[in-house]
């Protein structure tokens, strides 16, 4: 009810808010995206433009993201309840300033990759965050639906419903969501036996999107290496740029398609080969299959199962009636 109301308010006042925001900040979503607040969005990350903000202590996108989300995580329980029987606790509350990897307090980081491209050494900077997959396993498989894919493409975790089981991280090909133990609803249920905190990741600044504003990282990028817009437009733009630079696209097919398209003048095989996958620092495998797709045929059979049950019952009912009438016919003839 609340979310419906919120959605209606959002729709009604979307253009008004967007116009006000434009006047105030001068930075809003492209008009085409504003025209349809429920339309699917996509983002573009142009690696030929990103320089990693080498002149800054923290890249602008990372800094903006941290600033927007600085109060997101509530105070962490002290002491954090020890989970049983596996005693894994993940506590980043004393390392909030970490910016060179994904953490519950850092939803985007810039990966620096050194490669040899045609005999010359090159440094490529790659902003890494949630890809916002078209059919995200992290959201569809969440046992409490705390993680949800919104109409606008943002995949967002509701921290008030998440138990921190890290299932979303297990099924994410890039292991994006990060856990903070000692916060969340599990503390009020059975903290020793069930749940272990809350999972955190980029939500594409969904609250800002609903108000017609740009995600913080996109708004802050000084080189406009990050863009957002209607999915179709962004896909066309990514294709044009890739063609122009004789480059490559990542994210269009991976994991069944995503709302994040990287455009790079360097092949992603080469970038991935130069990456060292570490916790919170995902690689960029170029073949990323959506594993849940393998279960789709069986799932479709499940959707058809009520009809199968009805058909079997009808058929069996007809057979048994026929058998009974034949029996009665025999009796009568005797």
């Amino acid at each position, binding site marked *: 009810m609340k*979310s419906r109301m919120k959605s209606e308010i959002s729709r009604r006042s979307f253009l008004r808010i967007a116009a006000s925001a434009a006047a105030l900040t001068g930075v809003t979503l492209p008009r085409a995206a504003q025209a349809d607040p429920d339309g699917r969005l996509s983002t573009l990350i142009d690696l030929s433009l990103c320089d990693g903000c080498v002149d800054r202590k923290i890249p602008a996108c990372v800094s903006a993201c941290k600033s927007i989300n600085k109060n997101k995580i509530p105070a962490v329980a002290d002491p954090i309840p020890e989970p049983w*029987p596996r005693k894994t606790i993940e506590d980043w509350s004393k390392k909030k300033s970490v910016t060179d990897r994904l953490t519950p307090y850092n939803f985007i980081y810039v990966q620096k990759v050194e490669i040899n491209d045609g005999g010359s050494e090159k440094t490529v900077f790659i902003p890494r965050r949630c890809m916002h997959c078209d059919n995200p396993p992290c959201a569809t*498989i969440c046992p409490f639906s705390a993680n949800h894919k919104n109409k606008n493409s943002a995949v967002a975790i509701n921290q008030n419903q998440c138990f921190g089981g890290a299932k979303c991280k297990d*099924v994410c090909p890039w292991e994006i969501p990060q856990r903070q133990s000692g916060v969340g609803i599990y503390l009020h249920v059975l903290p020793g036996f069930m749940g272990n905190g809350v999972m955190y990741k980029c939500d594409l600044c969904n609250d800002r999107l609903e108000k017609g504003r740009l995600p913080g990282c996109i708004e802050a990028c000084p080189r406009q290496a990050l863009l957002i817009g209607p999915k179709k437009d962004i896909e066309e733009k990514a294709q044009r740029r890739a063609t122009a630079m004789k480059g490559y696209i990542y994210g269009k097919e991976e994991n069944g398609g995503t709302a994040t398209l990287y455009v790079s003048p360097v092949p992603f095989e080469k970038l991935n080969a130069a990456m060292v996958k570490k916790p919170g620092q995902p690689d960029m495998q170029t073949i990323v299959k959506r594993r*849940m797709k393998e279960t789709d045929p069986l799932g479709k059979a499940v959707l058809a199962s009520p009809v199968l049950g009805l058909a079997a*019952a009808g058929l069996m*009912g007809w057979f048994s009636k026929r058998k009974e009438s034949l029996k009665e016919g025999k009796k009568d003839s005797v």
Partner: protein
Amino acid sequence: MSEKILAEKNLIVRHRTIELVEHWAIAISGLLLLVTGIFELPVAKRYYIINVPGLGWSADFITSLYIHYAAALVFTVAGIFHLVYHGFRGEAGLMPQKGDMAASVVVIKSLFGFGEEPPMHKYLPEQRLAYAGMVIIMIVLVVSGLVKTYKNIYAPDMSLPVVLTATWAHNIAFILFFLAFLAHMGAIALRPNWPMVRGIFTGRVRLDYARHRHSLWVDEIETAKSPVRELPAKETEDALQSPAVPEEAGPDSRMAEGRDTPADETKNQLTDDRGQNDAEKEKPT
């Protein structure tokens, strides 16, 4: 093979083959759904289930989903078949009747040695109530499961209120299904119910057991020579008030008045039954 008395074998046919198939299809798929449903929670790693030989796959949510879907297919087909097929045939012996709640209390008390059981039909009153409860739980599981499956395949951005309703309905029904399963197993563990167990494997139960516990059912088969006719509520209530032997039932179906244990009573009945039934041939109904 429909309900009939096989007197020379001291057996009575309680379930047809189709009913056995339905029961076991739902039971086995339901059990698989329970297990893989639990594995869809992130418990396998935490509780070291993956270290149990043969359960290394238990932390792979996609493998669990495969099995969950396969079991859901059988579960839904069997469940819908059961409701529609038997509904179509007007077989309502398991539907709750007026007075079942009070009768269940009497029966359950008698299982623990307080008071005596009233004469009963083919199904016990608490079986009928449990059946209705299980049907409701299964309907919630199936409907919410179908919504979740549709979301997984076609609509990952389905309306959040719909997704949350389906998810929590599924989760709550899952807990109730698990409790119902435990209660079902608990009922089997009670000694007076043991003779019924063979019925769900072979379709037949001992005639002497049926005579002393399901006398109303046996009477109906013997007198009407037709499948079970449920007594009107008034008759059931009367039976509860006065657990006396129905006149037409004869001495063999008498309730175990003053018996020491159900087993002793069954033994006595068995002796009597054989005496009387020796001359009887198989009695189709």
